[in-house]
């Protein structure tokens, strides 16, 4: 069974043509959350990196990213000191700060052909000052809670992770799609 990868424009237009021919179609959608270091701060474009500029710095895209100040990554439960390497564009062995994301797959099949459109939606960073206890390895002399920048990742809005389709399209949520 052949699979055809489509971008958003191709996928929607193919679907539209089927709908206009009054063929009933079922669209399968899978949504899986990942945090596998696929997206790190070094590779993201400036548009996205600006959201992290309070706590991170880099010279340009694909250069090494350092912590601009100490902060606590609440999502990964990790503390970062100032000048810690957060992501290296060259050395992938360096444990880096990864951006979680949703992998969204839409597919429909017709006449034994399957058309698929896949995209990743990045979680949105939320950086704010919070009172936190510094862990032992941070070598702080102050045993009390201190005010520190805290990074959280907020999942994207539901509207951003789904395609808007007419009511006549049946959308089935599935756990996983297997390509044969």
């Amino acid at each position, binding site marked *: 069974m052949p699979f055809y990868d489509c*971008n*958003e*424009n191709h*996928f*929607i*237009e193919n*679907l*539209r043509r089927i*709908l206009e021919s009054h063929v009933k179609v079922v669209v399968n959608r899978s949504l899986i959350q990942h945090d596998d270091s696929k*997206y790190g701060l070094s590779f*993201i*474009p*400036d*548009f*996205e990196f600006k959201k992290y500029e309070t706590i991170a710095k880099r010279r340009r*895209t694909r250069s090494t990213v350092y912590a601009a100040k100490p902060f606590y990554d609440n999502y990964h439960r990790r503390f970062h000191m100032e000048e810690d390497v957060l992501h290296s564009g060259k050395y992938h062995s360096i444990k880096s700060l990864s951006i979680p*994301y949703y992998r969204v797959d839409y597919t429909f099949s017709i006449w034994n052909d399957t058309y698929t*459109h*896949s*995209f*990743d*939606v*990045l979680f*949105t960073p939320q950086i704010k000052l919070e009172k936190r206890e510094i862990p032992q390895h941070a070598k702080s002399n102050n045993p009390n809670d201190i005010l520190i920048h805290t990074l959280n990742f907020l999942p*994207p*809005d539901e*509207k*951003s*992770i789904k*395609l*808007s*389709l*007419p*009511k*006549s399209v049946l959308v089935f949520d599935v756990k996983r799609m297997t390509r044969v």
Partner: protein
Amino acid sequence: MEGRRETLKLKSMPSFTSVGTIEAKLAELNFEEVSSATVVSDGRFWHKRIFENASETITVSDEVGEVIYMKDPVITILGNFETIEKIRKIA
């Protein structure tokens, strides 16, 4: 509103006009931005924004990052025929 949604049509098109022009047209048609996210598709980063009015939904995906070719925002419409035609004229 559910009944109106039944008659909505689907259309997706690349646009050769600027996002600013598209936004202005959407504001004129009483669409409001309700959500946005950074999306990665085809190895490219997109700023995806969703606009809605009473019953219609329009998604505008604009590529972000360093590109050497001309950007072409993708507009996807779930709307009535008139809205699709108005957007098509400026795209």
